[in-house]
């Protein structure tokens, strides 16, 4: 197998947080990539906030699907056998009630206290939070998939978020192309490194204070 790097590595590692049979919610964009890297023997049920469990991705080009089955971006999707549909109240009820094993989202900023900002950049984006605040507050595990730094090379993992928060103290793991960081009562722990990446490199690209344990595992 060719070495997995970059965003593929982020998706590969994130998918290894899932257990067989888990109900998981994947944000639009990078998080859906996790499905390409599910470990052998792990089958997950995809939750979509707009009222379904069991979406199985877009149809093939010439394949008919029901136009009333859409994912959280509004794009048509297939519904697998055993899938089900319901109203938005039921959807957010079980999301908030802790019935979703993991929610996977991107971040503008995330900090060492487990705070997440991913819905608003004042003066620049005013799309709205959609279902993100409920998902982060309610899912049993909050997994953040993100490039370690922004496009200009500035750290996205900070001491304290500067943007309006999506949720306070809810993040569990941050998975980047360089490392896996675990939010614990003792602080943000550098638990795993990507192949060929040093502790020094991660520390230099992270604005948050990191707890560095004696033993650090590999992401692969």
């Amino acid at each position, binding site marked *: 197998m060719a070495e997995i790097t970059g965003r593929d590595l982020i998706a590969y590692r994130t998918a290894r947080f899932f257990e067989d049979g888990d109900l998981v919610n994947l944000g639009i964009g990078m998080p859906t990539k996790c499905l390409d890297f599910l470990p052998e023997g792990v089958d997950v049920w995809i939750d979509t906030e707009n009222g379904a469990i069991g979406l199985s991705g877009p149809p093939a080009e010439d394949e008919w699907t029901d136009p009333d089955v859409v994912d959280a*971006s*509004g794009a048509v999707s297939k519904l697998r056998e055993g899938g089900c549909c319901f109203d938005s109240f039921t959807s957010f009820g079980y999301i908030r009630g802790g019935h979703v094993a993991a929610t996977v989202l991107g971040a503008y900023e995330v900090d060492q206290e487990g705070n997440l900002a991913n819905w608003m950049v004042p003066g620049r984006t005013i799309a*709205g939070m*959609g279902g993100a*605040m*409920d998902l982060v507050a309610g899912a049993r595990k909050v997994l953040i998939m993100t490039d370690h730094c922004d496009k200009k090379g500035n750290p996205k993992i900070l001491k304290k978020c500067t943007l*309006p928060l999506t949720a306070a103290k809810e993040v569990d793991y941050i998975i980047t192309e360089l490392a896996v960081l675990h939010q614990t009562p003792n602080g943000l722990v550098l638990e795993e490194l990507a192949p060929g990446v040093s502790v020094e490199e991660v520390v230099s690209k992270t604005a948050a204070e990191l707890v560095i344990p004696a033993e650090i595992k590999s992401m692969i």
Partner: protein
Amino acid sequence: MAKSKVVSLEEAVKNVHDGQTVLIPGFVNVGVPEALIKGVIDKGIKEINVISNNTSVKGRGIGLLVHDHLIKHLTCSHIGSNTETVEQAVSGEIDVTFVPQGTLCERVRAGGAGIGGILTPTGLGTPIAEGKEVITVDGKEFLLEKPLRGDVALIHAWKADKLGNVVYHRTARNFNQIWATAADWVIVEAEEVVEIGQLDPDQIMTPGALVDQVVDIGGIK
């Protein structure tokens, strides 16, 4: 003999007036009562307050109301899918109040269920919590979120019988089921209208008792 609630589109939209608060369901373009929206626009209406999850996309569904500059205030969770809504929000033409999607569901549900509000962990420690009461229950903090109601609800059904009993289809159900509980006047557009007695009572998702009028739109338009 039970009385049919089926009326023409023109007759139904007579009940929607300038300045009212209108509950409109739908997720992006799915489950949006687009025929009723077009009917309301054709009748002529202005300065309405809309409570919806989002505003469809440009040129479709709720986006038609946006395009014609008919919305004064919008309560929703997301406008990112419609560039025209974003433009009008930035210019200040539409006053937008963002509510997290799950909280929006619960606030409208509370409005329809006679509950004085709900307590949710969603939004604690974020800008959404500003100015709201935090209530501690058994050592856990929650935000108090107040109920929302509308003057009118516009609902999109897959099937309705002539009494207004409704069945929704797949993810087009979304907000329809809740929105139908929380307005003084509830208008349903249905892709198919069937005779009374043809729907399985166990499959009915909105009881006809909550519905005032039914419009047969004869399929998805």
